[in-house]
């Protein structure tokens, strides 16, 4: 309830700010000032505040508040920026190559930002449904641990039973699967196909094995299942991190364009 009230307050505040900005235009027109200068500077300040979030993440040694708080403010300012842009462009398209490119950059930044927000909210929930949550950097160790454990089980099975079905299955199918991230595209779309595929392979093999080896196979299954989940986590967590590789450079490029835009505007101010 408290969260809902906070959201309502934040949305109301954003609407209030944008409405003020919109109706402030009439006042500025009445004063003989082009309101685009006001909302342009508003956008300039907003962009710099949005970029400050990235700088904040580097200044971990300074007590600048929680990153989560910064992130929430970042999202809020991002929404304000969308409204500000619409007001600045007077709800119409801009003309000219430079302005169009600038607008395209801004739109791409906002779109990637929106996608990032969506992924950062949706992916953790999905990850919690697919095994235990793991930090991206630790996935290789988890994977290595699975390799070590499974190899011990396979070696033990070979010592107890001289048949090679399990060892062959491990060597030919499981080992290559364990060495790297597999089925990236399937995991990207949150498909259950990889898990189903392994389940089928295990079932198909199981009916050919003795009861002893079938027991060994059952011991291997949780690790394969864990590896599938790790791959899923890896793909999703990589996505959660890599979108910033597009979003942040675009934001900085927008700043470069914005600086040039300001220079040109003030060079030709007062000209028709």
């Amino acid at each position: 309830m408290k969260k809902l009230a906070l959201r309502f307050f934040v949305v109301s505040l954003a609407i209030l700010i944008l409405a003020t900005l919109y109706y402030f235009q009439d006042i500025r027109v009445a004063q003989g000032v082009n309101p685009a200068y006001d909302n342009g500077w508003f956008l300039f300040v907003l962009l710099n505040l949005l970029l400050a979030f990235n700088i904040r993440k580097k200044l971990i040694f300074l007590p600048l508040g929680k990153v989560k708080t910064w992130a929430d403010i970042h999202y809020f300012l991002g929404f304000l920026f969308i409204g500000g842009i619409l007001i600045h462009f007077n709800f119409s398209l801009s003309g000219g190559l430079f302005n169009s490119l600038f607008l395209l950059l801004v739109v791409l930044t906002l779109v990637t930002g929106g996608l990032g927000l969506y992924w950062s909210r949706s992916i953790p929930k999905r990850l919690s449904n697919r095994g235990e949550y793991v930090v991206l950097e630790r996935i290789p160790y988890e994977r290595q641990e699975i390799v070590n454990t499974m190899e011990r089980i396979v070696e033990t099975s070979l010592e107890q039973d001289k048949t090679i079905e399990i060892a062959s299955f491990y060597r030919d199918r499981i080992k290559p699967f364990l060495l790297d991230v597999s089925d990236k595209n399937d995991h990207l779309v949150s498909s259950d196909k990889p898990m189903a595929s392994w389940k089928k392979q295990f079932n198909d093999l199981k009916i050919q094995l003795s009861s002893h080896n079938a027991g060994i196979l059952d011991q291997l299954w949780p690790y394969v299942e864990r590896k599938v989940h790790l791959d899923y986590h890896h793909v999703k967590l990589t996505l959660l991190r890599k979108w910033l590789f597009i979003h942040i450079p675009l934001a900085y490029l927008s700043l470069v364009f914005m600086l040039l835009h300001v220079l040109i505007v003030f060079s030709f101010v007062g000209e028709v």
Partner: protein
Amino acid sequence: MNKSISFRNKPYSRPNQKWACGKACSGKECLLGPDKKGSCQSTALCQPYKDGDRWRCTRPTHLGGSCEEGPSGLGDCCYSGGSCQPVLSPRQKRGKLILYSCIAISLLLLVFTFTGLNQIFFSPGPLSSKHQLDTMACDSCHSPESDSPMHWIQLAFSPAPDDKRNAYCLNCHKFGEFANKAHSNNIGKTDKAMDKTVACSSCHQEHKFNNLITSANQQGKCNICHKEKIESFNNGHPEIGALGGGQRTALIFDHNNHYTKHFDDDDHSENKPEACITCHVQTGNGVEYRQAAFKNTCKKCHLADVTGGGFLEPGIKYLSVPALDIETLEENNLKIGLWPGDVEDEELLPLAIWLLSKDSELTPLLVDIQNGDVELADLTEVDEATLKLVQKLVWQYKFVLHGLAENPENQLGELRSDSVKPIISLNAVATAVETWFPNIKFEKIQYERGRLAKTRTHEVDVKEKDKSEINPGEWYLKPYSLQYRPVGHEDKLLFSWYAVLASKIEKPFIKELFNYISHKEQPGQCSRCHSIDELSSQIVVNWTETNRLNTSKFTHESHALETKDSACQSCHKVNEDSNYLESYKAKDRNVHDSNFKAFTSQLCSQCHDGNKVTDSCASCHNYHLAVSKLNMSSLVSDFR
């Protein structure tokens, strides 16, 4: 599975460090990690520590835990090697991506900026259709240096003044002398707040696609300067007022008098217009109804007035021989040479006064004559000094007239104008001088030698023409005056007099001369219908309505009104109580008592409510009060 995140089991993630272990992606990251320069520090799998007198293995669990062999006696790990090629941390990769992309884009922008491509690249959009001409280029509207980025920086910090920027627009759009001022006019010259340069860009914006060149339709634009803020037509707009927007019409026509008096007269009843549109014709653009030509309307009754036919004297008296008190001058022994005798009722006319005013010594006497303090016909009570001045005036008058006949360019001086027709017939002047002062050449030679001719009188022998014998457009001589009969409506000579005098109105004695010629009772009667406005330092003769400041517009055609009288009178209701003609005496265009009742805003707001029909200021009001003339010649020559 081991889920602990203790340092021994798994190394901590350090995203802020520049370099990461090259083996991190395979889960075999060493404990030391790379140094700050990105070099691998790992020479062994662990760094043993000394426990008492024994070295113990510290190999982490994820690399297999403590080895069976253990460290050497010197404390070295028994597993040498294990070095890797460190990689940049993800955050560093992202930072480099940002840096390189910013550099690349900046370089690209610099290429566009410092090459000839900048006009194309930075152009903020297509021009409006009216400006999409082959002859238009960037420097038609912007300074030639505007393609120089260094100039942009300079302009950004010290922008060019508005009048300099406006100059580019005014190259083609001619709004006259006061183009840079509010409303392209000098209406605000007495108000400091208004007497400032208004940038064209205050209302007009280019590069806005299609035809969105003007933002004058934005309601707030007018409120920037106007103290009385008007929210909308229905909110704060004053009553529209009388026809003419508070300014009287250029042409004087009293509808009341004509319809209630003159057209009821039997002599003129047949000339009564059939309908409003008999006299008022719609202009080509369908905006206004203007007075029809004189020849189709007023001429029916007023032809004789403009040709002087209806007057006792059909011509305007330009020069004369003033009646002079010769006896008094003689009594004081003041010689004036030969002078016409028996002159009665003639005065020194304003043209003569102006001609004589070039002699500054005579100026006080001329002022006195003009004011009636000195009468040349009766000098009995004038002091001796004035009498001597009168003597000088008489001689000068003769010489000036003689000079006018001999060397008109010199005598007319500032009234000489190449742009208008000659304002006086030199032959007529020469004849008059010969008739009035036949000995002038001899007398002048004597005068220059310091000998004044004796005072004598002579009889002027001029056969006076009958009124019917004087043709329109003729200069004719009466015994003691030279007169001109106007040729009819649009008399070019009279027009020239008006034009020349109006342009020199601030000069001494010119205003009196203008008032004399433009007097409504003078033959020609121009000022009887064409109103005259006296501004602070200029005179405007309103020959046509186009000279007016049309602050408002009403497109009759688009309002689809019928052309029947009843339709006209639904808006234009005659005000029978108006004091129309009196209001013109003030010679102030803002003093107005219209023949028609004031319009009510309610009449317009029935439709112009901002919803059904626009209620923007510009839909009814003209901003540019000076008539715009588009001059493309300069533009064309620039690009040929």
